[in-house]
């Protein structure tokens, strides 16, 4: 069963300055969100594997939408994250079923690489509920300059029987990183951590 998609929203933010200090080149973050029908709305289902398959489809689709929005090659992507908001007819576990069992593989395939954990968040919500999609470097989770989050929402979703699924991709870390720690130039890229 493929995802029943009602709507796709893509947003890109570019930060050109912070506190009057120019950010050059601007840091850029993309979020692609799909609003889908929740096949399990209104009932308790024990087997959620259908949602895991939807996670595969959306992992590929939304990651590619982010890359297209940023206009970058997969190897230019630096950090990533994922999230889901479940409408009130569903349960939190439906978000988990989309995000965790199978979504990582197509996301990493679309980016060419990405051994780090894909940070995630999930919640229940109504129309216009915002979610903060956590971000971490795709090759090394401890890169301190790339710890971040991006807030996203769809004004008319999730309806009761819907789920909003989000993937975020950036080509940069925070503007003006200056709290030390592991830098992207020091990444070994083997264990997903450093």
């Amino acid at each position, binding site marked *: 069963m493929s995802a029943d998609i009602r709507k796709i929203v893509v947003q890109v933010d570019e930060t050109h300055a*912070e*506190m*009057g*200090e120019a950010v050059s080149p601007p840091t850029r973050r993309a979020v692609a969100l799909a609003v889908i029908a929740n096949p399990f709305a209104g*009932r*308790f289902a*024990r087997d*959620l594997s259908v949602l*895991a398959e939807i996670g595969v489809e959306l992992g590929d689709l939304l990651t590619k939408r982010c890359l297209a929005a940023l206009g970058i090659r997969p190897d230019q992507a630096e950090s990533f994250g994922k*999230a889901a908001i479940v409408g009130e007819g569903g*349960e*939190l*576990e439906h978000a*988990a*079923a989309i*995000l*965790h*069992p199978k979504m990582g593989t197509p996301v990493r395939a679309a980016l060419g690489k990405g051994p780090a*954990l894909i*940070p*995630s*968040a*999930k*919640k229940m919500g109504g129309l216009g509920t*915002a*979610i*903060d*999609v*956590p971000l971490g470097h795709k090759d090394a*989770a*401890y890169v*301190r300059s790339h*710890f*971040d*989050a991006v*807030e996203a929402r769809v004004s008319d979703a999730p309806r009761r029987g819907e789920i909003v699924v989000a993937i975020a991709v950036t080509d940069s870390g*925070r*503007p*003006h*990183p*200056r*709290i*030390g*720690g592991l830098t992207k130039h020091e990444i070994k890229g083997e*264990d*997903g*951590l450093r």
Partner: protein
Amino acid sequence: MTLIDIRRIATITEEIYRETGPAPGHVLRRAAVLAVLTNPYAGRYEPDILPMMEALKAPGLEMTQRCIDALGGDPSVIAGYGKGAIVGEAGELEHGALWHVPGGYAMRELLGNAKAIVPSSKKVGGPGARLDVPITHINASYVRSHFDAMEVGVPGHPRSDELVLILVMQTGARIHERVGGLKPSEISVGDGQR
């Protein structure tokens, strides 16, 4: 100039008995401690912000202890954690990043040298802004049953010149966890991931 000026501390606890499914027979408990501090760097671009990272170590330990106490005082019952920051409008995102080291390492220390990276999110927001704080297992980031998030905020804060620094802890898995994957009993590598 004093770097640490705490204006308010809020503690939130939740007890989750069930969602739409059958009650599993145990209660998932979680707690968040949110400290509202004056942002000493508000209103200007300060290149060297590292002194505050050092100064936050003591409040980090105190907030960690408060969070453990909110869950009954026994650190051994705590299975998941996360952290976050909301920066008031006269500050910049990077000021929130100061919380990574003192917040993360305080929790890892007081929870018995927890191995997993502490997941996080951050944003710049106005009074009453909410933040989704991601949660993962304290010893292995890939434990699928423990991927979660908690939405928190302090009504009326952050004001323009404030920071809200946040820690969250949880006593177990999502209440109806059933999407498979790595279980806590299967943690074996000891690298903080699996």
